């Protein structure tokens, strides 16, 4: 079972206590009535669905019941970090220090501070 760190309970808790609540950092327009149909569609329906690092909202529904944000690797299912709702999105520099994301995430190998594996003799460009 995955252990997810709740930033409000300040401890790792079993995944069963949590619910995913979709992509994080999607701000609703302050003037929603003035939005164009296209802009509203983007806000309402279009999600990034990346293969790799994903910023998500989670809710500790069977614990403190709070919503918080998490950075999860959708390839390895590893949670890189969790942080309280309303806090700024962690920048690439912060994420780089966390490392340990899957080899084929959407971040470049250099970005993750790793080295590209040397190609074997049989490989062709």
């Amino acid at each position, binding site marked *: 079972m995955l252990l997810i760190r709740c930033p409000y*309970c*300040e*401890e790792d808790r079993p995944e*069963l206590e949590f619910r995913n609540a979709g992509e994080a950092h999607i701000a609703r327009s302050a003037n929603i009535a003035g939005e164009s149909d296209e802009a509203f569609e983007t806000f309402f329906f279009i999600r990034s669905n990346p293969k790799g690092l994903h910023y998500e909202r989670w809710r500790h529904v*069977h*614990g*403190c019941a*709070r919503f918080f944000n998490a950075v999860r690797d959708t390839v390895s299912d590893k949670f890189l970090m969790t942080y309280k709702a309303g806090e700024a999105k962690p920048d690439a520099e912060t994420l780089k220090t966390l490392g340990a994301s899957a080899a084929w995430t959407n971040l470049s190998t250099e970005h993750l501070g790793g080295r590209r594996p040397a190609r074997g003799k049989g490989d062709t460009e």
Partner: protein
Amino acid sequence: MASTAQAERRPKLAGRETRHGALRVAMLPPAERMSLRAPAASVAALASALKIRLPNAPRQSAKSGQRTSLWLGPDEWLILDEGGGDPLADCRSVTAVHSAAGISHRNVAIEVSGPGAAACLNSGCPRDLSLAAFPVGACSRTLLGKVEIIIYRTAEDNFRVECWRSFSDYVFEFLSVAAKDVAG
């Protein structure tokens, strides 16, 4: 003329208990319960009206006489009163912003006590209940099998389990079977 119907309140599973060796699962007597939600600015006024500390850190609880306050979330507490006091009435005079809901009849409490009490709960609750992670006095909302419960560790080998009244058959049976397994 027909006589007036009288509603009679029957406590759920009152008096039930099972024992397996020294491990005991038992229904606790009815208590007054209140779900309290309040922003940080209101906490001092509520604490003085309720005459109990409202802890502001995860898993913390406070006890004062027959009254207990359990931290459930950053702005949420469960207030228990086992001495017949009415926490709702005590909150009535508080003008600071808060939400106090009486849930005395929504919940029932089950006591799990004796050696292996933590193992008994862990049969359906994946939460870490070691003394290091969950010391005496710790409390939290979590899961037991399929239902949400609140656990409160009153002693090293003694837990108070709060669950919804309608789930109490499930929780009681679950814990009874678990106790049998743990006691061997």
